[in-house]
């Protein structure tokens, strides 16, 4: 605290100050101190914390968020195209009850929603690609050694392709083949109407 405030206040101002008391009663304090005429009591006022209103220009932040949203939307669109023909993937990102001008917080929610959706979709696609690769290897093994994969069936969908066809290990000549160990892979091209 400065030297000026450590001096005793003149003309009973200190009494008034003490009588009024309470840091939250600034207006009353000011009134009490300024009341006595003839002397400037301003320097004796304790330093009063005041709330300073600063106008923050959020436009730049919103512009930046919109750019991020555009970039994420592009990446999500790329993922959508890459995911085809796989289905069952959720692409939607919750709307913000538009159309209207979104606040900074709402734009952040859109950006975060897109980022989360993109991460989820990429995770799903990675997992599916791994499964599909395993299934492709399984088809290869079925072709090489049908006898060790009796009745195993892999659909085209299981390897990430369109259509309802697939590979199925079945005995040649029915029950005779089953008894003799004559196994083969039957390749189905699927239903022509399904595509």
């Amino acid at each position, binding site marked *: 605290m400065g030297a000026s405030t450590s001096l005793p206040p003149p003309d009973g101002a200190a009494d008034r100050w003490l009588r009024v008391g309470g840091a939250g009663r600034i207006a009353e304090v000011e009134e009490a101190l300024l009341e006595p005429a003839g002397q400037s009591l301003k320097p004796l006022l304790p330093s009063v914390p005041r709330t300073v209103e600063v106008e923050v220009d959020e436009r730049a932040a919103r512009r930046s968020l919109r750019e991020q949203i555009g970039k994420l939307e592009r990446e999500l669109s790329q993922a959508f195209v890459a995911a085809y023909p796989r289905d069952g993937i959720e692409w939607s*990102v919750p709307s913000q009850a538009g159309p209207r001008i979104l606040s900074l917080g709402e734009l952040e929610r859109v950006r975060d929603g897109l980022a989360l959706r993109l991460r989820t979709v990429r995770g799903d696609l990675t997992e599916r690609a791994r499964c599909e690769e395993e299934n492709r290897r399984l088809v290869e093994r079925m072709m090489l050694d049908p006898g060790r994969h009796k009745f195993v069936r892999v659909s085209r969908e299981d390897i990430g392709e369109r259509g309802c066809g697939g590979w199925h290990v079945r005995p040649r000549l029915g029950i005779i083949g089953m008894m003799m160990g004559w196994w083969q892979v039957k390749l189905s091209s699927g239903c022509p109407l399904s595509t």
Partner: protein
Amino acid sequence: MDASEPGLDPGAVPAEGAIAAEVREEFPELRLLWLSAPAVTGRSPRGVRERLRGMSDRFRGSHAVTMRQAPVPWAYRVFYRHIGLDPDADRTPVEAAALTRLIKGAFKSEGILDDALLIALMETGVPIWALDADRAAPPLEIRSSGDGERLGRTDEVLPLPAGRLVVADREGPLAVLFGDLAPGHGVTKRTRRMILFSIQVAGVPTIHVEEALHGCLDVLAAA
């Protein structure tokens, strides 16, 4: 040509609608283009129906899947996100048309005006809407709706939520941005003149919008 001048002129220069200051601050590249033309309604002539058939034949599933990566549809998707819409729930006009084509198996003729709007949309990716000019008081403007404002002139519709982005004329909102037209303001058989308007967003070249409006007028002029 002035937007209010009579006569169907395929070379008409569209007028530029106003964008409210608070909207322009946020979306400086948003534009509203509109023009006035004599209303054309009724069944599409054979030429237009054949054009639709040709479009249907050329449009494949692969187009629908990759559409969102194309610059113009992508720009509208991004704008949808910016204004709080989910383009996978509320489809952009071009994606909605593509989906309808896939579901119905073809672009079905719905009358000359709808067909003209659809052809322009599918060829440019830019949506156009048509309003009854006798029930509108141009110039048009994009702005936020005020407290208690209703869509259109009737009291039968519920008030819009404050802050909803709308296309409005001097008297009030005529359409929700990228949404429904106000009831009773669409083009009907009794409409004499109509207003065609389009919305350009960031990333959509002006020439696409003008091409869409002129393409639409071309189809209507040929009818």
